[in-house]
């Protein structure tokens, strides 16, 4: 018999806890993870919002599955909503009406589900914008950026499949567009549509099929990617904004236990509360107004939920013909003509595809152009990466023009302008807007950087007017404190890197192309203040503060 010096708990609870711990080893995990430090900033919390709204979606969605009947069986509605009584509709629509009007708390849960879906995708998007504009996707986080992008696409997929389930008029119109896009493909289009809908649109199979995707496949993929995403966040450590004491090798913030456990736990309930409040007070997707789906009526003001809006907008912007040029190409096959309907395929697939392609590829594009393969755990202030911020702004404007086009009819009625003019202007903006946004954003970033330089070198305008003994007036400039100066002077400064010859002394065509882009991105740049510049400025001002001596240590 060996004697072990194993810990024996003295209380009953302690013994129970110890029993569990010696078998699952939870204390090691808690000890390790509980001391994990996360930095504190409001803009870091949108990913959390997405996570919490996703939990809300799972909870409310489970409730809805108890009562929803995903079937396209034709029945007569006999529920309590009078204006639809006795109307024929699918079982899916009827059960959604029952959830809304006859199931206790059903209306609230439906609205919780739908509002949190809108908020889920919105917070995902804002989270990705934050990551992009602060450069948090740089090494080592490129793959996590891709996982995040796929999560966004899955969010869109979850939203669209769910939006279509009630089989109401509004969502049916959306499915009709999907049907149209499929049929715009030559040869295979009609077959694809027939397979997807199980016969001629709308068929009898599409709702059950979307239901399987919506409640099983898509959420499973989201959960899987979510785990991967969070695991990578823990492995990589969280990024932080630059500041004194914050380096690429540390994380300044609070530990998970107890600070973040409490904060995040509390924040979950806050998000829950906000969504519940909105759902209790504001109506969303009143399918009883839209009525059951029937392929003949199309309501005015038919739009998809906001996150699909940009695709709908692109479709609205696309002209069917350009003068005499038709976007429909009839391909003369031996068996007859098959049409390739580019006026549908181009807007439905190309802008969204381009947007996501650039988004996914951006970390590699940036790494290639800047030749910067270092690890980055310190974030950029957006102004300190003018090229990236400008590209992001161009992308945002590109997206928003299409987004606005999806509500062109409401813009027309609410601002009393002609629908045609709205479309013409948005078509112009579709091409010009991103360019203007790029140029303008870059100029603004460079100006802000110049302002930062000015503040570091000559101090902040104090708003105090001094009168000299001679009677001249001047404004007093206060020197910024050392913390602020650190933030203003310490940033990742990308410069134009001319084309480099390879080992054989040859400059490849690809390298020349890279140099061209690098020049375009970094030709105009504002360099951070160097210690010697600061010294010179101070000497010129006649300042001789003690802080001047510390400068070297601050500037590295």
């Amino acid at each position, binding site marked *: 018999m060996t004697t072990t010096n194993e810990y024996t708990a003295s209380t009953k609870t302690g013994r129970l806890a110890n029993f569990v711990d010696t078998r699952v080893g939870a204390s090691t995990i808690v000890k390790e993870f509980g001391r994990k430090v996360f930095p504190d900033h409001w803009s870091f919390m949108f990913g959390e919002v997405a996570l919490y709204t996703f939990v809300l979606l799972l909870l409310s969605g489970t409730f809805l599955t108890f009562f929803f009947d995903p079937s396209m069986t034709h029945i007569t509605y006999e529920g309590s909503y009078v204006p639809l009584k006795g109307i024929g509709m699918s079982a899916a629509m009827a059960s959604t009406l029952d959830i809304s009007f006859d199931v206790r708390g059903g209306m609230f849960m439906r609205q919780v589900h739908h509002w949190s879906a809108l908020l889920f995708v919105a917070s995902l998007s804002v989270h990705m914008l934050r990551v992009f504009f602060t450069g948090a996707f740089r090494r080592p986080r490129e793959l996590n950026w891709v996982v995040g992008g796929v999560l966004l696409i899955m969010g869109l997929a979850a939203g669209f499949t769910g939006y279509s389930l009630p089989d109401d008029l509004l969502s049916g119109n959306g499915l009709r567009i999907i049907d149209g896009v499929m049929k715009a493909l030559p040869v295979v289009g009609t077959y694809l549509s027939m397979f997807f809908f199980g016969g001629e649109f709308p068929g009898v199979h599409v709702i059950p099929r979307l239901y399987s995707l919506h409640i099983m496949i898509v959420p499973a993929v989201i959960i899987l990617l979510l785990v991967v995403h969070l695991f990578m966040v823990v492995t990589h450590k969280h990024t932080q904004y630059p500041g004194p004491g914050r380096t690429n090798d540390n994380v300044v913030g609070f530990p998970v236990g107890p600070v973040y456990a409490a904060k995040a736990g509390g924040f979950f309930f806050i998000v829950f509360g906000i969504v519940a409040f909105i759902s209790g007070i504001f109506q969303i997707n009143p399918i009883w107004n839209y*009525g059951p789906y029937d392929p003949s009526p199309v309501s005015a003001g038919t739009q998809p939920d906001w996150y699909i809006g940009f695709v709908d907008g692109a479709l609205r912007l696309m002209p069917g013909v350009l003068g005499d040029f038709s976007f429909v190409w009839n391909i003369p096959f031996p068996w007859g003509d098959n049409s390739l309907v580019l006026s549908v395929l181009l807007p439905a697939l190309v802008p969204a595809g381009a947007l996501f392609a650039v988004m996914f590829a951006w970390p590699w594009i940036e790494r290639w152009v800047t030749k910067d393969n270092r690890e980055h755990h310190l974030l950029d202030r957006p102004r300190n990466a003018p090229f990236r911020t400008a590209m992001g702004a161009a992308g945002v404007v590109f997206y928003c023009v299409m987004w606005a086009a999806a509500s062109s009819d409401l813009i027309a009625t609410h601002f009393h302008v002609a629908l045609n003019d709205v479309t013409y202007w948005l078509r112009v903006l579709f091409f010009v807007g991103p360019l203007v946004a790029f140029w303008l954003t870059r100029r603004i970033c460079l100006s802000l950087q110049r302002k930062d330089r000015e503040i570091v070198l000559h101090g902040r305008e104090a708003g105090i007017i001094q009168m000299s003994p001679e009677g001249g007036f001047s404004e007093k400039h206060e020197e910024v404190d050392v913390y602020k100066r650190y933030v203003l002077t310490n940033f990742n400064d990308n410069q134009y890197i001319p084309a480099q010859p390879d080992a054989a002394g040859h400059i490849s065509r690809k390298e020349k192309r890279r140099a061209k882009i690098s020049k375009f991105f970094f030709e105009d740049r504002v360099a951070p203040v160097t210690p010697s510049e600061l010294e010179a400025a101070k000497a010129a001002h006649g300042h001789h503060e003690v802080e001047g001596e510390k400068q070297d240590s601050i500037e590295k």
Partner: protein
Amino acid sequence: MKALSKKRRHPLAAVALLLFGLLITGSLYTAAGSISEAKAADTTTASQSDVDEGGKLFVANCATCHGMNAEGTNTGPSLIGVGAASVDFQVGTGRMPMQMQGPQAQAKPVQFTDDQISQLAAYVASLGAGPAIPDEESLDTTKGDAAHGGTVFRVNCAMCHNAAAAGGALTRGKFAPTLAGVSEKHIYEAMVTGPQNMPVFNDSNITPDEKRDVVTFLKTIEANGSAGGFALGSLGPVAEGLFVWTAGLGIIIAFTIWLTSRPS
């Protein structure tokens, strides 16, 4: 028959045939038109004095655009045959007299009293047969079927007026107005007369009973209000998306700033 076939090569045979064809087409058209023309029983028996008074009002307020005898000018259409319902709708909703020329006449505060409107209507009705002002019976929403009216509305009206009757945009600055707050009579009259850019829904297209169902449907959803809370203008996903991006995210951001703030 032989006499007829003998004359088939007569120089005027083609002319005769054409005349015959036109006669057949014309009479068929008249027959079809009289069947499908909206006929609401004319309960307001207009007296000659009403017509005379209406004529005076017409000359003073409408003739500039519609012509001294309502025959129409370059700036306004002829009103012969538009019927009393048309006048009652256009003048009764304030669309006429028109505030200004534009893609379509905008509703504005009504300019005439009810008596004056009925006098004007009587005058225009006296110029030629047209749809009359609907009677009480065809507007009685207690006799209508809201559910059936909803189906008719979605198939015939929702593409312009929106499924929730919130209104919508048409081309080149024209629009379909919201139907909330529009009286039963005016809804019915709009259907039978097709004001502005609206098509006419005659009685064979939508029967008088179905028109009453549509009115009933509209009044029912108006009375029901929005079951799920504030309707955000019944404008659908655009309003919802705008709300979540402004109010929703706004509240969230306020909380995130609060959670990460430090006492200073």
